[in-house]
C-alpha cells in the first residue's frame, strides 16, 4: 500500500491491521513517534493525518486515509515549528519520551483552536501522559505557542 509521510510517498508491504506506528518506526525508520502503551492511553505515538492528531498505535495501516505528518515533518532542529520553539523556551522536557506526542497533540489542537482558554488546553492535552510531571510547563508552552502562532 502507499503512504505519504512528511511529504514523501512510500510503498509499504504490510498487513492491513499493522498499526501505523509500527509502519513508521520499523518499516520506514521514522522513530519520532514513540511506543508507550499500545492502547491509545498515553499519546506518545501521536501523529497527524491531514493535520488532525491521531494515536498511531491504534490506527491500522489500511485505514490511513490522508497524508501523515510526524514530529520530524513538523519541524527540525534547524527549522523549528512554533510549538517546538515554545517547548524549548519553557524547557518542558525531562526524560522527553512523551514530548513528541505532546507537541503533535498541541500543534494540531492550536491549528483547530488558535485562541484556546485554559480549560480547552487542559481538555485537549489530558490524553497525553507524562510520567515525569512536566505538565505545568506543557500548559505554559501551549499558551506561548498560541500567541506566537497568532503573531502576538
Amino acid at each position: 500500500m502507499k503512504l505519504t509521510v512528511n511529504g514523501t510517498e512510500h510503498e509499504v508491504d504490510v498487513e492491513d491491521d499493522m498499526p501505523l506506528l509500527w509502519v513508521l518506526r520499523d518499516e520506514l525508520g521514522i522513530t519520532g513517534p514513540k511506543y508507550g502503551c499500545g492502547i491509545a492511553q498515553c499519546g506518545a505515538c501521536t501523529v497527524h493525518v491531514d493535520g488532525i492528531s491521531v494515536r498511531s498505535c491504534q490506527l491500522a495501516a489500511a485505514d490511513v486515509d490522508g497524508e501523515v505528518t510526524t514530529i520530524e515533518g513538523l519541524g527540525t532542529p534547524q527549522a523549528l515549528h512554533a510549538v517546538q520553539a515554545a517547548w524549548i523556551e519553557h524547557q518542558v522536557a525531562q526524560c522527553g519520551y512523551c514530548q513528541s506526542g505532546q507537541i503533535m497533540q498541541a500543534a494540531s489542537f492550536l491549528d483547530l483552536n488558535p485562541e484556546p482558554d485554559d480549560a480547552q488546553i487542559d481538555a485537549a492535552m489530558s490524553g497525553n501522559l507524562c510520567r515525569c510531571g512536566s505538565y505545568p510547563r506543557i500548559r505554559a508552552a501551549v499558551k506561548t505557542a498560541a500567541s506566537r502562532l497568532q503573531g502576538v
Partner: protein
Amino acid sequence: MGRVKTIARRSFLVGSAAIVGGVAFGTYLYKREVENPLEAGLEPGAATFNPYVKIDSEAVTLITPRADVGQGAYSVQAHLIAEELDVDLEAVRIEPGPPSAAYYNGVVAAEGVPIAATSETTLARAGRGGADVVSKIMGLQLTGGSTTVPDMYDRLRSAGAVARETLKAAAAAQTGLDVAELKTDAGAVVLPDGTRIAYIDLAAIAAKTPVVEDVALRDPASWRVLGKPHQRTDIVAKSTGTQDYGIDLRMDGMVHATTRTNPALGGGILGFDASEAETMRGVQAVLPITDGIAVVADNTWRAFQAAQAVVCDWGDAPYIGNTEAQFAEVAASFVKERQDSRFKDEGDVEAALDAADTVFEAEYRIPYLAHAPLEPMSVVALFGEGRLDIWTGTQIPRFMQDGAAELSGLDAENVHIHVLMSGGSFGRRLEDDYVRQAVEIAVQMPGTPVQMVWQREEDMTHDFPRPLAISRARGAVAEGKVAAFDLAIAAPSVAESSLARWGQPAMGPDVAIVAGAWDQPFAVPDYRVTGYRVPAMVPISSWRSVGASGNGFMHESFMDELCHAAGADPMAERLRLCNHDLSRKVLEAVAEMSDWGSDLGTGRGRGLAFTLAFGVPVAEVVEVTDVDGAIRIDKVFVAAEVGRVLDPVNFEAQLSGGVIWGLGHAMNCELTYDGGVAQQDNYHVFEGMRLHQVPVIEVRGLENGPKIKGIGEPGVPPAAPALGNAIFAATGKRIRQLPFSKEVNFL
C-alpha cells in the same frame, strides 16, 4: 587483599560500626588513584587529565557518568565541569563514559547508614565517610538516591579545574610565558596580548605535561555557569523527536525481538507451544530464555503478535500471590521476631501512653506501585567475535556489565556498555533483568544486532515495585500539644530484595523500612519509630524516594491527626516541635508562600506535610476544594532546603515533577496481585495525574544549609500526606489508605 574485599562487602549498606572499622583498614586502597578508564584507547596526541575530561585535536569531551533518566543529570554534570574548565557547552561533546570503578558513587551507600541527616556528631561523619570508602572500593557506579549533585559537586569541579590548569601549564611551556599571565575562556587559553590557543590545539603537548593536581576551586560568588538558569543540553533533541532512546536505535541487519516470561515472577516455565507463532509473518525464531520465551521477527509489532500466540505453561509464583494474603502477612509482622530496627526511641513511649487519658490509634496502608517509565524496557545487543555490545538506558552500568559477562561467558572487559538516554526510570533501571534477556537472545544469534522491546503489559507485570506496607500508630496529646508518638512500620526489605539480585548480601537493619519516619526533626517528648521486616514476597526495588515514599504519608498523616486531636494548628505545632533550624526555615517558608492561616472559604481546605529525606527537608501545603463530593487539587506550595541550587530551571522541574509523581500515585495508583501476577498491566488502570488535574505549583529552594543536596526524590514523600491532610481539612474525612481513590473521587 582478600580480607579487604571481604570486609568491604560485609559492611555494605549496614550498620555504622562495621563501616567505621573499615576506614582505617581500607585507607591505602581508598587513597590509591583509581584507574582512569579514558587512558585505554587514547589516540596519540590526545590528552586526559582525569576520568572526566578528554581533549584531542578535534574536540573537548566531558564525561558525565551519572545516568540521565530525565532528571537533567547530563546537563548539571556538564555545568559542574564547565564552571572550572571554561568551555561553552555548545562546543563540547558530552558522553556518559564507560563502566569504570572510577565513577563510584560515594554518597548512595551513606543513605543506607542509619545516621540521621541532621546529625553532625563525629560518629555520624565517620560513618558517612566510611560509606564513601566502601563504595569506592566496590566501584559502585550507580545513579540514584538523589546523589548525583552531592556526590559530583566537588569531583567534577575539581576535574575541570585540574584540566584547566594543566592546559595552562601546557600553553606556558609552548609559549615560554609564565602561567600566572595566562587566562582561560570559552575553550581556549588566552595570552596577555589576547591571542587565543584553543584547548584542542594544546592536546598533544598537554598529553605530555605533568597533571597539575594542586588546584583551588573558584568561589561561588564568581561563578559564571552554576547557580544560573540554563537550557538543558538535550532540550532541542527532545523537542524535535531526534533524541534516540534504546527503542529508537536502528542498525544494519537488526532484528526486532520481544519476550514473554512468567508474570508470576521467578515461577519458571514448564513448557510452551510456539507452533502457531512460528508460522506468523515475519517471525524468524522463537527462542527459550530464562523463565519464558523470546520471539525474533522483522518488525516489533509482528514480534508482539507472535509472542501473544505462543502458548506458555507457567509455574506457580514462589511468593504469596494474592494481595489480601500479602497484606495479611504484613499485618502479622508486628512481632518481636520480625523487628528490624528501632533507631528512634526517645523518652518513654510506653509509660506516656499508659498514663494518657486517651490514646489515639490509627492504621495506615500503602500499596505496591510500579515504576512504569513511559519508554518500556528496550535494549539492543550484539554478540560475536569475542565481544558483546549493549546499548540501553541504565543506572547500573557496572553491575550490568558483570551480569552480561557471566551470561555470555565473556570477560567483563569484552562487554561494552553504551549508555543511552532513558525514557524515564524512577528507579526501574537499577535492575538489569531486561538486559539479561536481550543478552540471552543475542548469544543465540551471533553476529545479528537484536533489539528487544517489551510490550507495555510485559513491562508493568514484570516490574520490581515499591513494596506495600502497614503502619500502626499510637499517640497522646496534652495541654494542646503533641506529647507522645509511637509509629510501627512493617514492610518487606527493598535492600534485601535488590541486593540479592546484585549478588550482594544485605546485613543489619534496612533503613528504608523506616526512612522518612525515624529521622524526622521533631522533639516529641516520647517518640519512637520501630521497623518490622516482612519476609520477602514479590521482588521489589527502589522507587522514586524509596522507603520515604510511603513512610512520609504514614508519619505525616498521624502527625496531622495528633495536631487536630490536640486542638493545635498543624503548622504552629510542627514549628514548635521542630528541633532543626534548616527544617524550621522550610516550614516557615511554606507558611508564608501559602498564606497559612488565611480563610479559604467553605468547602476548601489546606493540608501540610513535612518530610526530611535524602538529607533534604521539604514542606508542602496542598489546597483542595470539595466540588459536590469530588476533590479538586487547586494549588501546591513547596519549599526545600538543598544548600545550593545549581540550576533554578531544572530545580523547579524536578521538585514540581516530584510533587506530581507523589500526588498522582496517591490519587489513583496501586498494583494488586492475583496468582502472583500484577493485575494492573497498562495505563488505563495505572493512570497517575493527567494534565487537567494538575494544580498550580509554586516552588522555592532554600540555600541556608552547609551541604549541597539533590532534589530528584525529596519532593515526593510529603505530597501524599499533604493531600490527605487537605482532604481532611476540606471534608472532615480522614483517609488512611492509598490510593485515595478507594474512598474519594477526584475531578
